[in-house]
């Protein structure tokens, strides 16, 4: 694909009307914030917010060998989910580096992979590669499918009046169903990236404005929230972000994602490395970080114990919930213990911090 100028989603005019500050993200013009990322963050924690995540990719896999293909191409135990269920999983290179982290949904007649915008092509190529010699039909639906994430404790009150039946409101975490939202046919999944309960709504590209407008004007209006708030929300939860915590240079064990790998069978691409890392241990591990004094950590900053550099920050921000610096870091495994006192070099200033349990902020009691 040769994207010359940044692409826009079908909600672009809605973002402009809402006063969004737009920025480039993985080749897309996306709303970074609508004036106050902090307020957007807190709205998601306290009531309900909505994010345009139409830039994410959707790849469908159908056919007789679909399950066999995805069992090989993805790390988690695909056998654990049946129609109407989704699963967080990883796609690895043959030598165990992470190509992407994604959610795979089992639908009645096919599987659907929801992948990061930045990795859409890489995932597509990898699936094609793994499909060779197998009886499968694969399709990239990314250009046809829009996606709105509705997140926050009030999500049911925001969505309830708009759905065609009560079934979306009864979904368990990671379940998915088809229904109407504001008279638009949609796939509704009980997933998200904020730590709050909520859903991700996938609908035809051109119908997204109708869903957005209905959520905006509902009895409990959803607050438009941008990618900056999405990032602070996921950082508070300690969720990895591809490009920060995940890359082809590190495997799932260092990222503390063994739970997303089928370690009973190891029958997936890249499994040798995962198995070896589990057996031998890894030099560095991903940890949560909370600052004990003012300052904001940023990705790439050194983590020290005494004068010794023991790691590097992979993400960092100011937590709107805790009102202090937080982030994640890869640090030498011997120090990857909750409570370990560390120092982060913030542009020459040494900030006291400690290794903290993830999530860094307690999840909403109404979360799963």
């Amino acid at each position, binding site marked *: 694909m040769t994207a010359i100028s940044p692409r826009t989603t079908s909600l672009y005019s809605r973002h402009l009307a809402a006063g969004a500050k737009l920025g480039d993200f993985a080749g897309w013009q996306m709303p970074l914030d609508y004036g106050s990322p902090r307020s957007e963050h807190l709205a998601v924690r306290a009531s309900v917010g909505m994010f345009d995540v139409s830039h994410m990719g959707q790849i469908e896999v159908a056919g007789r060998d679909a399950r066999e293909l995805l069992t090989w191409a993805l790390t988690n135990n695909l056998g654990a989910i049946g129609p109407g269920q989704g699963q967080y999983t990883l796609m690895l290179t043959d030598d165990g580096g992470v190509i992407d982290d994604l959610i795979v949904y089992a639908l009645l007649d096919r599987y659907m992979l929801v992948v990061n915008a930045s990795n859409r092509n890489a995932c597509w190529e990898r699936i094609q590669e793994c499909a060779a010699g197998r009886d499968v039909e694969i399709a990239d639906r990314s250009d046809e499918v829009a996606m709105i994430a509705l997140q926050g404790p009030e999500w049911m009150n925001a969505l309830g009046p708009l759905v065609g039946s009560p079934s979306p409101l009864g979904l368990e975490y990671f379940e998915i169903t088809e229904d109407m939202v504001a008279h638009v046919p949609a796939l509704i999944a009980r997933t998200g990236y904020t730590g709050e309960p909520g859903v991700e709504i996938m609908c035809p590209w051109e119908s997204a404005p109708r869903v957005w407008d209905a959520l905006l004007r509902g009895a409990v209006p959803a607050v438009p929230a941008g990618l900056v708030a999405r990032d602070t929300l996921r950082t508070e939860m300690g969720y990895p972000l591809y490009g920060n915590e995940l890359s082809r240079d590190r495997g799932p064990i260092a990222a503390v994602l063994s739970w997303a790998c089928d370690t009973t069978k190891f029958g997936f691409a890249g499994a040798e490395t995962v198995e070896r890392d589990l057996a031998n241990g890894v030099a560095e591990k991903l940890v949560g970080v909370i600052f004990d004094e003012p300052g*904001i950590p940023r990705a790439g900053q050194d983590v020290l114990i005494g004068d010794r550099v023991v790691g590097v920050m992979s993400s960092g921000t100011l937590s709107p919930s805790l009102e202090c610096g937080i982030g994640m870091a890869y640090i030498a495994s011997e120090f990857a213990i909750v409570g370990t006192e560390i120092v982060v070099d913030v542009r020459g200033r040494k900030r006291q911090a400690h290794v903290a349990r993830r999530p860094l902020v307690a999840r909403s009691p109404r979360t799963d």
Partner: protein
Amino acid sequence: MAEETYPEDLRYHREHDWVRVEGDEAIFGITWFAQDALGEVVFYEPPAVGSTVSADATYGELESVKAVSDIYAPADGEVIAINDAVVASPGLVNSDPYGEGWLLRVRLTNPDAVSGLMDQAAYTAYLAGLGDA
């Protein structure tokens, strides 16, 4: 968020900092343009009271959720006060950049040097030029 304004009684530095002279003292802050570019400010790292600041050199940092921005001194001086209200509530820089969002009070080394900075007309022309670039 404040309306875009550039008061007449201030002088402006090309790094989008302003100075308000009061006798041999002055107040420093950042302009509407600077706070708009930075976005919602969430952290202010001020210099120590008693330290010296030098014209065109950075004296502190303002951070938004996503970015860090150096703050430049428009003139030489000694820090006699910092705005603790902004340390506690950095968003004041956005809501009132020329009032409650001031950053520093200094004793100027040479109050006359401030006249060499841009006035309102020159600064707004400078901003228009940036827009063309």
